């Protein structure tokens, strides 16, 4: 949890785009998947021709958690339905109830995103108490665009857990110092 970035220092563009920040994100994913899902997750570099939704017929789930405070942005986690169902079953400790499967999937993906967003910001001292998280929003489907009000820095990371893929996008607008 310790970080060399002091609490009084703001998160700069260089810091946001740094290897150290990518490592924080990777570390957070590893922690959340290990503790809450009981599985390993690793960084993955998909080929351009490898669509995220190949196994789902385009039925994707995207969870978005807003960040507000000294930074403004979003943490997004996107995966296909099969991956989302796998996350749901792992968190649920078995198959989710058949009569409430869609709600359970959205709930699980939203909570996953919430823990990842929280885990990342809690690794950065200057964000711990000066950046709040929104309640997660979950989008079903793959034909959507996110339009931030102002240009934002963006970091994309792709991961694999078991045979499933997950794409994480962190968007961040820096407040002026």
């Amino acid at each position: 949890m310790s970080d060399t970035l002091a609490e009084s220092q703001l998160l700069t563009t260089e810091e946001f785009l740094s290897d150290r920040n990518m490592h924080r994100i990777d570390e957070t994913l590893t922690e959340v998947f290990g503790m809450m899902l009981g599985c390993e997750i690793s960084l993955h570099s998909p080929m351009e021709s490898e669509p995220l939704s190949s196994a789902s017929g385009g039925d994707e789930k995207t969870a978005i958690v807003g960040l507000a405070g000294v930074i403004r942005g979003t943490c997004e986690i996107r995966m296909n339905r099969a991956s989302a169902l796998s996350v749901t079953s792992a968190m649920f400790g078995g198959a989710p109830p058949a009569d409430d499967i869609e709600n359970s999937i959205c709930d699980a993906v939203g909570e996953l995103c919430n823990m990842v967003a929280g885990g990342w910001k809690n690794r950065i001292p200057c964000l711990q108490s000066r950046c709040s998280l929104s309640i997660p929003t979950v989008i079903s489907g793959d034909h959507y665009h996110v339009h931030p009000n102002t240009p934002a820095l963006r970091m994309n990371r792709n991961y694999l857990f078991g045979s499933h893929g997950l794409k994480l996008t962190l968007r961040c607008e820096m407040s002026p110092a």
Partner: protein
Amino acid sequence: MRGTVLVVDDSAMMRKVVVRTLQLAGLEFETVLEAADGSQALTQLQQRTVELIMCDINMPVMDGLELLKQIKQQQLAIGVPIVMVTTEGSESQVLQAIAVGAKGYIRKPFTPAQLASSVLPLLAA
């Protein structure tokens, strides 16, 4: 087997995860009450006696910190340990939660051992 636990979280999945993790940590409760926000939790507490409250902070309608203030103001759940379970982990939030009555604080994600070490001393007290 213990009495009743109230789990407060806007995520139904997370409520189940908390209950399952308590079980894995060896804490079985006869009755599990669930509430999706602070307002629902207050209604439950006005009608029932509980032995433990596990509570999220970020929730719609009424958040966890406001729930704790209301519990104190309405003199509900007197002496019942309240453990905050949240992704928010800043020192100021921990202090805020303790100031309004929280006895424990655990950050998501958590393991059964971490949950047990937060809850067991409070139940034994």
